[in-house]
């Protein structure tokens, strides 16, 4: 385990959700592979209920155990298949296969084996489908070495293999070939489509789905066609029909549960429902936001969900109505805006959907809202230059938001600077000023003068552009009487330096100085008179990042050059204080303290350095932060300062540092050890595997365990009775309402847990069986039956409960008599 008080890198969201198709559990949970984890969402509330970690690499497949719908198989590139109890989030078993697993399929018809796609040994880029026998042996970690090859030359993508009706056959596609293997007949049929290349793309297969009841295979193609294959058990007389709506690659296909309709999705981000396999009867669900990567159906057919390339999960009703959307950190093609913290909500702000700004809540791993900046229809088509958001800046209080959008054109870029005002009434940003072509070339940086205490009219925005100038924008009173707003923004000052391109700009903490970097030089300007105060440079190498120090270190200016130097200049002496040889990618000052974090990229690993500008020695170094390149970082202020024991991590006291890697995984540093972070529920012991795990049985199982404990330690029973009972009640009250069984079931438990004498009696009865029996022989037959049931109590608590309710309602009189009798013995036992 991790030694106490060491920093750990913790993933906190945003990793790719598209390792595999999502799976609906029988009781409306959604399970999907997310990076190295399996995430469990509640379909009803869109919440992330559980994150199941344990795989050492990307999870490539999740499948419900077909023989126990409360269990889940997951496969990973690390070569293991894990069987999970997903209600508790506990791994039950781990089967080690050995080679990389790229896809997982579980079939109801195959008793104890699952199918996985593994790379063929000895050959590159060839994969085979093998069935893995999962041994029934006891123990947590098992070897699964019994592999038998089913199909050779399959594709690595999990979308390109499908199992047909009742597991009779398996179909796989690769490039232009389709192969179908019949398990019973041991017959392999191969078909191919002629490779044609049209202007809309080739007709390679991209995905496959099998009809659940009929012998029909649907395949999707790169040119947007869907082919429905039939009669494929004849090598020659096979036939197919074509459905064509998509204009680009069909990304995934799914049949409805009855097989009457087919769902397809692609980059158009439109879900198409084909009814009766006819191309005349189709329905659409358009505007799903981004390209559809996977489609999966729930087992009752009531819901389907689509996984999108931007990590969004959309849940759709069976009547093709949009139902819910589960969205964490939206993955955009390129985070050009950087990581910005919204001062108002403390949410992380970055590029979301194309042309949108997303506000991502770090605490709940949910998107707060998405602000449409570009306000133009996004057309999903490759090679189209679209307007996109490139820069964003907030004023200190979050009252103003400045955005820059541009459309990449070869000759002259289309630029727009927009200023948004936060409207308290509507609780959203409202467009205040739009400036067309604020600069003649790309805007490289933008910042507000960050002064909390000053009035609105001192608010200044500075933009730096590649057209060799920086511009200062100020608010002016709007003179136009017809204007609906009182203020608007206009340019106040244009500064330049030797016709160099302006690359970065930054205000000092008190707002009196502005630093603008022009290629190799940093210039410092007075923000009142706009006079050039001094210049710094550290040749060779252009300035990559600059920032001012804060609080006690506000007399320092830090700059990082692309020649691998980190320099600190003293503004008072106008001299270089210190410099260090460090290839800094990200330079991020903490707004609440004087600490500055720098992330370097050296020899394929990122390292983190935290320093104070007044000391040339870093306070904290973490080498090998992660293997991916870290693109962006941000300090997010904590709500309350955290108590941190070690001196070394004092810099994390007031803010938390977040990183975004180039795979758009969001990471943070945590001082807490792994154990502390784990939810209590996941530390629970594994229940017996034979038992189907439901929330109800879980509740009961706990209850029973307590009972058995009572059985053992009868003496302690009474005194701590109340405390022992309360967890059951607590559990009952703390479980979300939608996962609880019906009230009629819960009622007896609840009552039971409150019944002190009754409880002890039943336990007592079992213990003192012999003694009781002598008494009962005189009793009537009804009594005798009761006793036998009591004896069974341990084995089947459910039965017991049922029996008890009936007893309570039926024979009150007998009950009373019995209680009197037993009470007697209970006292005697004391």
């Amino acid at each position, binding site marked *: 385990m991790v030694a106490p008080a060491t920093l750990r890198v913790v993933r906190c969201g945003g990793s790719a959700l598209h390792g595999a198709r999502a799976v609906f559990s029988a009781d409306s949970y959604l399970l999907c592979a997310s990076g190295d984890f399996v995430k469990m969402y509640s379909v009803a509330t869109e919440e992330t209920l559980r994150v199941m970690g344990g795989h050492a690499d990307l999870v490539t497949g999740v499948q419900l155990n077909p023989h126990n719908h409360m269990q889940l198989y997951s496969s990973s590139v690390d070569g293991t298949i894990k069987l999970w109890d997903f209600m508790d989030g506990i791994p039950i078993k781990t089967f080690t296969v050995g080679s990389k697993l790229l896809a997982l399929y579980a079939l109801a018809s195959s008793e104890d084996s699952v199918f996985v796609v593994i790379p063929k040994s000895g050959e590159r880029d060839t994969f085979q489908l093998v069935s893995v026998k999962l041994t029934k042996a006891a123990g947590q970690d098992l070897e699964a070495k019994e592999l038998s090859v089913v199909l050779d030359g399959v594709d690595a993508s999990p979308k390109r293999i499908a199992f047909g009706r009742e597991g009779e056959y398996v179909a796989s596609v690769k490039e232009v070939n389709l192969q179908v293997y*019949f398990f019973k007949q041991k017959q392999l049929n191969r078909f191919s489509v002629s490779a044609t290349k049209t202007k809309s793309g080739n007709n390679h297969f991209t995905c496959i789905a099998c009809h659940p009841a009929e*012998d029909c295979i649907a395949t999707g193609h790169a040119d947007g066609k869907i082919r429905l294959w039939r*009669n494929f*058990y004849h090598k020659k*007389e096979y*036939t*197919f*029909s074509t459905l064509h709506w998509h204009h680009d690659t069909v990304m995934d296909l799914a049949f409805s549960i009855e097989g009457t309709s087919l769902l397809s999705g692609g980059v158009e981000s439109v879900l198409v429902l084909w009814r009766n396999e006819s191309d*005349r009867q189709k329905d659409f669900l358009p505007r799903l936001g981004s390209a559809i990567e996977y489609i999966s159906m729930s087992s009752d057919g009531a819901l389907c969900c689509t996984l999108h390339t931007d990590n969004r999960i959309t849940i759709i009703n069976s009547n093709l109505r949009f139902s819910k959307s589960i969205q964490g950190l939206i993955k955009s093609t390129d985070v050009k805006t950087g990581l910005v913290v919204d001062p108002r909500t403390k949410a992380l702000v970055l590029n979301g959907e194309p042309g949108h700004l997303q506000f991502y809540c770090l605490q709940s791993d949910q998107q707060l809202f998405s602000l449409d900046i570009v306000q133009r229809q996004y057309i999903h088509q490759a090679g189209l230059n679209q307007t996109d958001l490139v820069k964003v800046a907030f004023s200190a209080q979050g009252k103003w938001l400045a955005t820059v959008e541009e459309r990449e054109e070869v000759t002259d870029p289309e630029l727009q600077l927009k200023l948004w005002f936060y409207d308290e009434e509507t609780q959203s940003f409202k467009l205040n000023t739009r400036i067309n072509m604020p600069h003649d070339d790309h805007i490289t940086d933008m910042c507000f003068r960050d002064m909390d205490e000053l009035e609105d009219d001192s608010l200044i925005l500075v933009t730096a552009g590649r057209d060799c100038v920086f511009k200062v924008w100020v608010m002016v009173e709007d003179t136009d009487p017809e204007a609906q707003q009182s203020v608007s923004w206009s340019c106040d000052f244009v500064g330049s330096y030797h016709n160099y391109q302006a690359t970065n700009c930054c205000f000092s903490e008190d707002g009196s100085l502005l630093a603008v970097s022009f290629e190799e030089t940093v210039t410092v300007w007075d923000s009142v008179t706009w006079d050039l105060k001094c210049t710094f440079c550290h040749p060779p190498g252009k300035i990559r990042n600059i920032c001012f120090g804060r609080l006690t270190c506000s007399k320092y200016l830090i700059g990082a050059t692309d020649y691998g130097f980190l320099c600190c200049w003293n503004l008072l002496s106008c001299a270089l204080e210190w410099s260090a040889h460090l290839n800094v990618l990200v330079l991020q000052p903490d707004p609440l303290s004087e600490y500055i974090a720098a992330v370097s990229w050296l020899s394929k690993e990122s390292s983190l350095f935290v320093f104070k500008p007044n000391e040339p020695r870093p306070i904290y170094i973490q080498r090998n932060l992660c293997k991916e390149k870290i693109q962006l970082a941000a300090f997010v202020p904590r709500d309350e300062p955290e108590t941190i024991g070690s001196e070394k991590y004092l810099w994390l006291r007031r803010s938390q540092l977040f990183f975004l890697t180039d795979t758009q995984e969001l990471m943070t540093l945590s001082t807490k050890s792994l154990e502390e972070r784990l939810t209590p529920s996941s530390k629970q012991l594994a229940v017996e595997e034979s038992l189907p795990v439901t929330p109800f049985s879980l509740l009961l199982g706990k209850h029973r365990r307590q009972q058995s404990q009572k059985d053992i330690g009868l003496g302690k029973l009474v005194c701590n009775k109340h405390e022992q009972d309360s967890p059951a009640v607590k559990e009952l009250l703390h479980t979300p309402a939608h996962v609880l069984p019906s009230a009629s079931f819960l009622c007896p438990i609840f009552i039971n847990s409150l019944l002190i004498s009754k409880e002890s009696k039943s336990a007592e009865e079992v213990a003192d069986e012999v003694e009781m029996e002598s008494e009962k022989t005189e009793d009537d037959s009804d009594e005798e039956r009761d006793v036998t049931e009591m004896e069974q109590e341990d084995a089947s608590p459910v039965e017991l409960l049922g029996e008890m309710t009936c007893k309570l309602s039926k024979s009150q009189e007998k009950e009373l008599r019995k209680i009197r009798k037993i009470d007697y013995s209970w006292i005697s036992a004391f």
Partner: protein
Amino acid sequence: QVIPGHEARSVEALCWAAGERLFGAGLGGDISEYDLARLCVARSVDGCGGPIWSMAANSSGTQLAIGCEDGSVKLFQVVPGGIQFERNLDRRKGRILCLSWHPSDTHIAAGTIDALRVFDVSSGQTVQRIMVNYHVQKVQRECIVWSIAFLSSGTVVTSDSFGRVQFWDWERGTLLESHTVSTSAVLSLAVSEKEDSIVVGTSTGATYQFQLLPVKMGSLEKRWVRTKPFQHHTHDVRAVAHSSTALISGGLDAQLVIRPLMEKMQKKGYDAVLRKFTFPHRRLVSCARKARLLLFQFSQHLELWRLGSTDETGKDGEVLPLCRMPEHLVQLKSKGPEHIYCSCLSPCGSWIAYSTASRFHLYRVQYEGDSVSIKKVRKVPKLLLPAYQLQFSSDSSSLFVASARGSVHVLQLLEPGGCKHLHTFQPPSGSPEAVYLLASSADGHWLAAVGGDWAIHIYNLKCFKHHCTVPMYSCAVTALAIHPVTNNLVIAYSDQQLFEFSIPEKQYTAWSRTVQNCGLHKAWLERDSPITHIAFNPKNPSHILLHDLYMFCVLDKSLPLPDNSALLMNQSTLKQLPETARQRQLHAFKICKKFQPLLFADLLDENCLVMVERPIMDIKTQLPLPVQQKKFGT
């Protein structure tokens, strides 16, 4: 072979009955039987029910059922030498648009507007009536059942104007399956012999195949599944047929398409290729070489054009400026409703002859400067009509008229405008079939005639005697010509074989024998369209000029024949090759493929070649507008 049409009688239905007898019925209200030897209507019977929309023969071919405008279905007995009215079936209102017999001949299914009806043949009663638009809510327009098929299982298949193909259980009157294949009407439907496949044609020009496939492997439950769409037409597909290996469709865009079913083919090859036929394989253009005139034959009129000319010469690929524009001289309208069957222009340009099914016309054309006068030759000898082919002798002194029963009439043309019947050639053994191709030699000595039995007879014109018969070959002759110098007869057959027959020696020439021994190039044999015209280069006697719809070929007998490994390349691609490679590629066939459908090519004089193209777009612009369809990305 073509049976000439008639303006007033559009043919709505055709069927084969009682063996090889072809019946047609049309909106004229008549049922006609066609004489396939004489290529004309043999006899016709009035259907007595107004325009006839449909006709179907029963499986044994003994009875014909017709569906009429007035809603009646009438049965006719097919008897030797004609048909006989048998009975009327139960009559209801609404035209009967389609008919189909149950394979056991006990029931007939008929499609009308909004409904389909099933008749019992023995009682003549309507035993079932199914409303086809019952399942459609709020129907504004009527649903026309365009086509119907009765399967032996008792399933009735209908295709209607809503674009649906529906399967009905006729006994219960229930809908079994419904497939919407198109937004526009489904016009035609055909069932395969084994009843496991159906082909339908729609008004968008697409044809679809339906197949009866088992739902699960090994289970008996089968379902009709729409499988393959084919888009070969641009307009309505009016008729489809389903052979055991191919789907055949024809439509308003005047194309006949044979689409082979790949899964039924044993191997890839000549049979497995999609084939399209647009133009009739006949000569529709005749040319007066000396007068530089062209005569175009249309179905109802003839057009005479004078060719333009140029004085300049230029390099290959240049378009030369014309010093005289081509000139439309005369348009000659045929009288009566019948279509023109054949026409011809004499080499001197002063005679025009044409023939319809019942009449033969000869005109004298006189040119006075720019004005043209045309005069009908009055006293035309009574001939056995119709004429199937007309041919002037090379000196324009006589006209050969191909006629029925293998006979060829020779008419002598007299100045200033008269003619005289000289002789009638008859094949020595006699023949029931009409002559459909003629070729005369340049020296006026020989005449070759091809009959419907594909026998080529050669007659001596000097002594009006049968000279010899070319050995029979089991394919239709598509073109033949007599060489002006050597008097060799060059014959092109429909299987793309070429023969050269020496008339004076009455045997195949040595070159022809080597061609047969070596065999022709595979690519040549696998061409779609037959050779429609043969001409010769007077400068070089070893050159034979051949053309079909898509290519023009100069066959040089002096060069070696290509073997199968050689490429039959287009001249334009050959031109891009370096000289040495071109030498290696040198063989007898020089092919030029740059034409839009080529209707006619002939050598005017030694260095002038006339080509007549008919772009398909020209034809399409005259057709009614096709169904508008949105095409993605346009």
